[in-house]
């Protein structure tokens, strides 16, 4: 039977490293994805992910369970991302991952996805990354939390420490900028508006 996050947290507090490893296994990919999308660098996202769980483990005795474990870890990760960006003292650069070869990826994906579809998806992914670079950090984070992590407005407001109406405004403004950028790059034609 799969243990809940709360059960794993309780056991981790008692010194059961395996339980905490299960929590890591459960949440490392979402945390890595969040960090990558916010700061835009693969290796730094891995560092943030690692540091997030280290801090979470150290702070576990102080975790009272008032919020969900996932929300708590997300908050740690976002703070680390913010620290990282502050250190960088410049807008994060969203770079294409090194060594990504569409042909090679086509081989990995097998016959399910054609090379054309794959290349198109990679191109679109790059355009979206570029568009996200244009957004201020708050708007970008709000969109990432909403679109890729399925959080509610209230959860985003709690994480960002702002009113709920501000979250909605950030989402609207961010999406409008993205829309204009995608239109400018010819990415809003009807035939391209399909879920890939």
């Amino acid at each position: 039977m799969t243990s809940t996050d709360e059960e794993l947290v309780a056991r981790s507090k008692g010194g059961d490293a395996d339980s905490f490893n299960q929590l890591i296994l459960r949440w490392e990919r979402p945390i890595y994805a969040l960090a990558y999308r916010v700061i835009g660098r693969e290796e730094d996202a891995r560092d943030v992910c690692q540091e997030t769980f280290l801090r979470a483990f150290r702070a576990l005795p102080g975790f009272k369970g008032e919020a969900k474990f996932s929300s708590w870890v997300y908050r740690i990760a976002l703070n680390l991302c913010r620290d990282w960006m502050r250190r960088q003292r410049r807008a994060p650069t969203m770079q294409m991952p090194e060594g990504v070869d569409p042909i090679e990826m086509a081989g990995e994906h097998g016959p399910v996805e054609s090379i054309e579809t794959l290349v198109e998806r990679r191109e679109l992914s790059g355009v979206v990354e570029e568009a996200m670079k244009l957004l201020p950090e708050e708007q970008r984070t709000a969109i990432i939390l909403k679109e890729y992590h399925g959080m509610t407005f209230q959860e985003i407001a709690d994480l960002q420490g702002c009113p709920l109406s501000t979250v909605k405004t950030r989402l609207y403004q961010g999406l409008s900028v993205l829309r204009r950028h995608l239109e400018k790059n010819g990415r809003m034609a009807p035939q391209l508006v399909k879920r890939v």
Partner: protein
Amino acid sequence: MTETFQCGDNAALVGYMYGECEPAERRAMDQHLLVCPACAAEIEALGATRIQLAAWTPPEAQLGFRMVSDSAPSDIRRLAPSVVERPPRWWALSAIPAWAQAAAAAAIFAAGLSLGVWRGTAPAGPALTGTAPTGTAPTGTTAAGTVPAATVAAAPATTSANVASASDLTALEQRLRSEMASELALLRTSAASPAASQTASATEAQIMSRVRALIDESEQRQQRVLALRTAQVVRDFDSQRRVDLQNVRSIVGQMEGTTGAEIARQQQTLQYLMRVSQEK
């Protein structure tokens, strides 16, 4: 906003789009969208933008972090900072034992020193490389030859502890300093006496011949690998060509069969028509 919706209320628009609004708000928005093409178009465009966002996926990363401490979180401060272990990387230097790193560093240093001595005593570049005798295997008895041997010998001493202690490193440093001093002394002597110069030249020649032999071996190995890969590519290409030819033949055969049947059918029809026309 509960009963009506005003154009320009972007927060309400976003709430509607994400399905996070009260039922009364939703009803009001539904009614408004029926009569306001601008807001309907706005919702549609933002929805299309959201669909595009789904294409952005982070690169696959090898994660697999895990805690390496069995202590309770409250005891974690007493432990080393790196308690969340990353998956290992092939190039990670930390995987190499300390004694091995020290030995490698010493060997590189000694090799550099030997090279420096050789360069310092060489008469001229082309003359040295052109006249160096070959076939004289290094005996390890010359002064220069003892440098790597002495350096490598330091490794087993540290192997027993499996970790290079401070005293080991100090001893190694002293050893290297004394060897460096002896090398410098040799250099000075060789510059002064012709006999010593001859010895140094012989050592240089041995090093050169060894380097040449290593280069030759490497080139031969590369050539073998290249030949192997070329043969493999040719074989793959040939087999692919055969498969393609077979496919082409099969397709052509099918087409010929279809065409032949079609012609036969047409001929039959033509004959029938001619027969019928002649009967009339």
